[in-house]
Every structure is written in C-alpha cells, then in structure tokens.
C-alpha cells in the first residue's frame, strides 16, 4: 500500500517541475508577446504623432497654403473622394471573383486542380506593384478604350460614364481594375482558408437533408464564414486605399469628377503624395503630409467599421 504513494509523489513532483519549467517558458513567451504588442502600438503612435505634428501647419484655419485653394479641406476632399472611389471599384470587382475562386478551390475543384489554382492566386500577391502599374499602363489601358467608348455611348446617362471618353484609357476605372487584380489574392487566400474550416458535420448534415451543393454552401459555409469574408475584404480595402505605384503609373489625374471614363480626372492621395513629394518643400510638404494624415484617418475609420460588422455577425458564425 505504501509503495504507490511515493511513486505518485515523485510523479507529481516531476509534473510540478515540468510545469515550473513550463511556466518559465510561459512567462518569457507572454513577455515577448506583450513586447511585440507594445512595439506595434508605439510605432503606430509615432507615425500618428509625426503625421499630426507635420500636418498641423497646413490644416489649421487660415494657413497660407502653397496650392491655389482657400482651405486645406478644399484641397484634400477631391483626393479623398478619388481614393475611396478607386478602392470601392476595386472591391466591387474583386470580391465576387475572389469568393468564387475561393469556393472553387475549397468545395468544387478536385484537389489536383485546386492546388495549382491556389498557387497561381498566391503568385499574384507576389508580383510587385510596379509590374502591375506597367501592365495597366501599356496593356490594360489601351484595351479599355473601346469599352469606355461603348459605355459612354450606351450608358452615358449614368454620371459614372458621362463626358468625353478617354483616348488612352488612363482613367480611375482602369486604376480600379488594376487595383482589383492586386487585392484579389488577398481576399481569395483568406476566404479559402475560412471556407475550408467549415465544420464537415454541418456540411454533411445539410447534404444529408437533401440540399444541393449550392444550398449546402449557402446554409453552412457562408454563415460560418461571414465574419471572415468581411475581414478579408477589409484587408483588401487597406491595400487598395494605400496602393501608390500602380495608380501613379496608370492614372492621368486631375480634379474630382463623377465620371470614371474620363482622363485627367480624379486623383488618389497616395499617388498625389508620390508625384509631388520629390520636389516639395515648406508648406507644400505639410500639405502632402496632411493628405497622408487624411488617408490614415480613412483607413482607421474603415477598419473600425469592419470590426463593428465582424462583431455583429460573430454569433452566427459558428466560430465560437
């Protein structure tokens, strides 16, 4: 009777030692994690402080601006509008395709095809934005010219397609299309991961109740993945809002206009900064940095909205 006791004691002391060693690792790791979190917040804070302090001279009322406008807002709102419009076009075009591709890979395609398709999509993410820019400029833009002419002819009553259509294709719509190709892999990769996480039991239950494959996806995959799809779209939106190089190369910028098929119209904040920063000094520099601050604020607002949407749908997702 007495023999098992020491054994248990030994065992428990051994497991204690183990857990002590484990707790050392635990505290080191939690320290590291905390440090990483703090560093990220610090970097963000520094960026924000820099932006605000450099932007203030241009934003404060009565600032003697370098651009021929009365107030900073007058200068920046067309840029903000252009940025948001380009990003919205990109997402409108990219999201359906991305979700479709992700579903194809996760639920429709045989593994032999799904793998290479997934690989190609991932490859899209690795192409540098300059290459997209050159492609958009030299290949896509000329291809779009007749399409814009057609849109203008048949749908010209819609403000988006009004006005004299471009002769080079360097418009906000072309920029939006290039951006949509660039955000496609981001949204696809995330959606694919989430779709494959859908509990098999749910899916089999749906199929067992006589649902077709589409009904099964509608009933089990989408509700489960809704929050994830929104997050992936928001990540894509972040990319679309901040993309500089491709837009700079593809767009002939100008003043704000609802028309998406005219050249010399609309401009985005990152592209405006990239184009004018090299020669900027004094107040012009403050203006550009203030424009950067506005982009920062837009991105922040978008992320907060996304977070709110994700939280709202969390209870239906099945993830908990």
């Amino acid at each position, binding site marked *: 009777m007495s023999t098992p006791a020491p054994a248990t004691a030994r065992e428990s002391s051994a497991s204690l030692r183990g857990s002590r060693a484990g707790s050392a690792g635990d505290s080191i790791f939690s320290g590291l994690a905390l440090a990483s979190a703090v560093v990220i917040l610090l970097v963000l804070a520094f960026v924000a402080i820099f932006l605000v302090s450099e932007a203030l001279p241009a934003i404060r009322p009565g600032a003697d601006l370098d651009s021929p406008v009365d107030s900073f807002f007058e200068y920046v709102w067309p840029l903000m509008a252009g940025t948001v419009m380009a990003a919205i076009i990109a997402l409108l075009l990219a999201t359906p395709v991305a979700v479709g591709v992700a579903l194809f890979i996760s639920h429709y395609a045989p593994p032999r095809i799904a793998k290479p398709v997934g690989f190609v999509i991932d490859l899209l993410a*690795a*192409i*540098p*934005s*300059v*290459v997209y820019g050159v492609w958009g*400029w*030299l290949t896509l833009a*000329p291809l779009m010219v007749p399409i814009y002419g057609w849109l203008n002819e048949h749908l010209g009553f819609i403000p988006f397609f009004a006005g*004299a259509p*471009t*002769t*080079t294709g*360097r418009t906000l719509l072309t920029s939006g299309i290039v951006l949509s190709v660039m955000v496609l892999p981001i949204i696809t990769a995330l959606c694919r991961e989430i779709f494959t996480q859908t509990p098999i039991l749910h899916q089999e239950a749906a199929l067992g109740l006589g649902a077709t494959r589409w009904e099964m996806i509608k009933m089990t995959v989408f509700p489960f993945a809704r929050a994830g799809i929104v997050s992936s779209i928001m990540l894509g939106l972040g990319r679309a809002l901040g993309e*500089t*190089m491709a837009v*700079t*190369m593809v767009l*002939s*910028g*100008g*003043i704000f206009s609802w028309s998406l098929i*005219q*050249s*010399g*119209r609309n401009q985005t904040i990152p592209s405006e900064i*990239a*184009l*004018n*920063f*090299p*020669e*900027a*000094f*004094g107040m*012009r520099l403050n203006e550009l940095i203030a424009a950067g601050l506005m982009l920062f604020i837009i991105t922040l607002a978008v992320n907060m909205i996304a977070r709110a949407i994700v939280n709202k749908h969390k209870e239906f997702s099945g993830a908990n």
Partner: protein
Amino acid sequence: MKALRFGRSAALLSVAALALTACSSADNGGNGGASSTAPAGSSSAAPAGSSSAAEGGATSDVQGNLVGAGASSQEAAMTAWTQGVSSVAPNLTVQYSPDGSGAGREKFLQGATSFAGSDAAMDEEEAEQAKQVCGDQGAFHVPAYISPIAVAYNLPGVEENIKMDAETIARVFTGEITTWNDEAIASQNEGVELPDTPITVVHRSDDSGTTENFTAYLTEAAGDAWSYDEVETWPADITAESAQGTTGVVGLVSSNEGAITYADASAVDGLGTVDVKVGEEYVAYSAEAAAATVEKSEANEDGSIELDRATTEAGVYPVVLVSYHIYCNQYKDQETVDQVKAFAEYAISEDGQSTAEGAAGNAPISAATRDAAMERIEAISAQG
C-alpha cells in the same frame, strides 16, 4: 524535404528581391542622389586627355568634400560633373542630392550646402537671406544647365515638322484646338497633309521645372490664349492626359497616335517636334538656338537671366529650361573657396559642358555666357 525547404526559401528570397527592387525604383525619383556621390573614379563620362581641355591645363590639388543640393532636372548632368571634376581636381569629391529646386535653395540659405542647383532664380527675400550665409555680397547665379524643351507629337503620317506659333501651342494645350487639321494649325502648315486625328494633350503629373519653364513661355509669348500663368504643377482645370516624369510623358505620347506633349528635347527621339514661331520665322529646337536664347537675354546683377521668351530675334529657340548653380560670392574659408572654384569652373568649362551633354543631352552654354560666368567665379573669395 530539405530540397522543398530550400525551394521555399529561394522563392521567398526572390520575392523579397522583387519587392525591394520595386521600392528602390520608386525611391529613385527622390533620393537617387546617394548614388551620385560616387567618388572620383576615373569614369567613362570624362573623356581621356580631358585635363588639358580644362582651364589652366594642369590638375589642381584641391581636395575635400563639396556638398550641394537642388534641382532634379540637373541630376544627370550633375552626375557627369561630379565624376568628371576628377579630371581637373582628382582629390575633390562633390556630392549633389537632387531634392528639388526649392529644397535646394532652402538648404543653401540655411548654410547646409555650399551650392544649390535651381530651376528658378532666387527672389528678393531669398537674396536677402543669402547675405546672412554668404556675407554682405550675397550669392550669384550661373546658368550652367540649358536644356531645350521640345513640343513633341506622335503623328506617323506627317513627315515634316509641324509649325506653330505660341498662341496655337497654348490653344492646343488648353484643349481649345481638338483636331490636328484644325484651321489654326493648317493655316501655318500649307502643303502639309494634316490628318483629322483628335489631339491628346499629355502633361507632367509631377511638379516639374519643365512644366514651369514651358508655362512661362506660354505666359510670355502666347498672350491671352494662355491664362494660367507660370506654374510648376499643370493647371488642374485643363482636362488632359498626364504621366510621371519625362520618360512617362514621352512613353505615353509614343504609344498614342495624335498625342502631343512638352519634354526635355534629349528624350524625344522618334517623335515629331514642333517648329516654334519666333518673329517671322519658324525655328526647330537645337542646342545652339537654345543657348542663343540665354546669350541674347539680359543678365541681372546677380547673374540670373531675364529670359526673353517672347523674343523676335532670328535663330533663337525660346522654349528652354535654364537651371542655375547658385554660389556665394564669399565663403568662410579658403578651402571651400578653392573647392567651389574648381567645381564651378569645371562645370561651365567646354569640357564640363560637353561631358554633361553626353550624359544629359543639354545644350552647351555659349562662349559669351561662359565668359560672363567665369568672371564671377574668379571673383569668389574668402570672408574678411
């Protein structure tokens, strides 16, 4: 497994390399200056035996490090000069960062650099500030970089240079004239078969000294047809195509029939160029005609040029970009004086100008302009 891992990291690396290249190519516009600091390596930009061509013949023993900043328009020429100066002063290193004209003048006026490159002359306020850095005699300008701006177009069917006066050019660029066979153009080009192709105007999307000088020409020479004044950024009210940088606009024009733009003349190979009406004649751009504009224009007391762009003088091409080097009349110590003199004299010497021409395609300054500038450079001295 190992092979797979290796493959993976190789893929990662190549992606990283691509991404980094992307970054660096994006940076070039702004900070390419770091690369132009190449020390006095005997580069191919300096022709052999060039030391004999330099003033005085022998190489000087000036040494040290001379720092300047300013106009990016001069970047290519400045790279040639910073390398070529070793042929006259082997131990002198010159650094130039192409931060833009405004930033260059600002740094110079703060005393952070010994000279500035600038597409525009200093205004009165800046000239006053210069006296604080340079002493009571202030600073002066040397028109070291002259570059003709070509009005270039893409019309495959037309062999001859199309002729236009300043007013027509202005009306084309404001979008008032929309087709190539418009009466305003046709009346100046009798015998030339002009197509009814629509005109696509292409301008620089970035702030640029080329835009500034081109609009300055339109402001002075085109009268009421151009109402947007002299601007560094193309007026947003005009709906037109745009692209970044000289290569951008030239590339866009090359790929679009009927397109027209203004660009540094050295970059418009393969495109048609407009002969500009001066007086009663139409003048094609050429290095000599551009340099003549500067020579025939009046020089201010501080060395800057009052370019007469509305000139009617024969053989002058008035659409030019003139970029200055700005130096102090007096520097704090003799060492800097020697460095500045060595560099300034080299840059405008025949050798320096032809070296720059080879690299940047600018128009070498005329002998008269050189003599006037040499005089001022000779007079640079150390303070008190």
